[in-house]
């Protein structure tokens, strides 16, 4: 595991801000995931050492919170909100369109490694439903009618990206 200098420095600045080291857990795991794309067993052991807890205490956190993952995903993470306000405005149809147009099965990564499409629960943007998050950005009012264009734009944008550097 090769964490960037930026991440290492961030972690060292972060821990002393908390009254107890263990409190920095979620923030460190976020930083690792951002750096590496996922949280490996090695990363959990490293975190445990940093926070002076057992690796098991890190593992139980990683497995509890839906945002943490233990395996790499596609270059773009497409998260479709499926909870009631979005569903009432067609979120399931939006998800079907995205799966089809991005050639990606729900909960899986596309064969070209570009996309992972998932359902997520309410992301607190119900007034502009249906919403889709791509990586860390929220896209609002992605109606079933707009979904094909949205997928097409996403494909263009992703193809123009530099080859993956994360993994």
């Amino acid at each position, binding site marked *: 595991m090769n964490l960037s200098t930026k991440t290492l420095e961030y972690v060292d600045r972060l821990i002393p801000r908390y009254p107890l080291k263990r409190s920095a857990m979620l923030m460190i795991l976020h930083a690792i995931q951002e750096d590496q794309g996922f949280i490996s067993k090695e990363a959990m052991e490293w975190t445990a050492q940093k926070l002076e807890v057992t690796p098991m205490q890190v593992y139980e956190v990683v497995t*509890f919170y839906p*945002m943490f993952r233990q395996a790499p995903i596609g270059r773009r993470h497409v998260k479709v909100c499926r909870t009631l306000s979005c569903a*009432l405005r067609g979120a399931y149809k939006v998800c079907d369109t995205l799966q089809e147009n991005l050639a990606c099965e729900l909960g899986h990564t596309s064969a070209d490694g570009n996309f992972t499409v998932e359902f997520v629960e309410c992301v607190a943007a119900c*007034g502009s439903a249906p919403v889709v998050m791509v990586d860390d950005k929220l896209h609002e009012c992605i109606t079933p009618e707009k979904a094909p264009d949205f997928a097409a734009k996403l494909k263009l944008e992703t193809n123009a990206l530099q080859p993956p550097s994360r993994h």
Partner: protein
Amino acid sequence: MPIQERRIIYRHIDEPGYTTDIACYQRHGGYEILRKSFQRKPEELVQEVKDSGLKGRGGAGFPTGMKWSFLDYKSGKPIYLICNADESEPGTYKDRQIIYKDPHQLIEGVILSAYAIKAKLAFIYIRGEMFEGARILDKAIEEARAANFLGDNILGSGYSVDVIVHRGAGCYICGEETGLIESLEGKRAYPRIKPPYFPAVLGLYNCPTIVNNVETLCQVKHILDMGGKEFAKIGVPGDSGTHIWGISGHVVRPGYYEIESGKGTVRDLIYDLGGGPPPGRSFKAIIPGGVSMKILRVGEKFKVKLPDGSPGEWGVLDIPLDSGSFTQCGTSLGTSGMIMMDDTTDMVEALANLNAFYAHETCGQCTPCREGSLWLKKITTRVCNGGGRMEDIDLVKNVADQIAGRTICAHGEAAAWPCQSNVPKFRDEWEEKIRTQIQAREHGDGTPAPRKGLRLV
């Protein structure tokens, strides 16, 4: 008279030219209330909040001043303040607007509240999915620190406090205050049992802790501005201040509207401001405040006590927009995130959608909730997929009845209430749906009865 918005918290939200930087905030009078309030004793500020009658805006509606008065100062342990910015009750998106568009208002509210309760350190626990929101808050905190509105010896008062932005990682249960505390300690968000773990006595690191919602802490700023007694005059007795209504679902103009408590009815909100149902349709059901609250069927009537004490009757659309009125109708305004469903909605699908949510979000600690929410999801999804049995109707109600009241935290009630209200109120729809399915299975060619309406699960 048409319904009027009264924007106090949202005064500058979406105002053209209003930005998130401290210079803009200060041009609009920002941090002036902090300057003035730091001349006063913390106890006086707590008294103002008590006088205001403010009820918490996180869903439970507990009086904020009373919550603060439970703090155990005698223990001599450090006091912590946590701002609950884990906005995750489906239908609710009011705190997001404050965080993204007026972060300094929240930070001023946090610092004022921290000073009032003599907190040693404050946290803003923000949902993990609000990546940009966390960055905006971090930047705002650095600006406030540079101006000495937080950090050491704030404005020469001798009081010091730091604010840490802490990100969650996608768990609904972290909105439950003791679950949030466990999460902030770096653990799984398993809610704690009360007693003994009342946060004001045994909270973060077993120290006295106050957990308040984003909007609540912003309200505190305005209470200190106008004075508690003056604030108490806004709205109706027993529910002072404004409510930020976020409306979503089947409505022409979804959006957020800040309305003085009790000034206006559901009809005013969803027709005058929301524009009514989509063309050619009519409202069938409304969930008043976040999906955990009990559903209302348009057409049902409630026997109520009117403000003058005389008996009266309200339909769903007549309910005034204050907490007491919703309680009288057997539900609650919760987080004031209202979801509308029109006549095309299949109510079994709507319930199945929510049951899938609760099954995903249960922390798994208490058996009734862990097992029950999963069964509720399985049964309602099966009914949606064409495999309904007549006995499922009572079964859903029965399973829900065995969750509520039998769990450590209110997730049990949250998972049960939608079932306990949907099933009896829409029993006719359940029966008709299942009858059609049975007919298709017994007399058809084996293909299940087609789904009607929009797929929700």
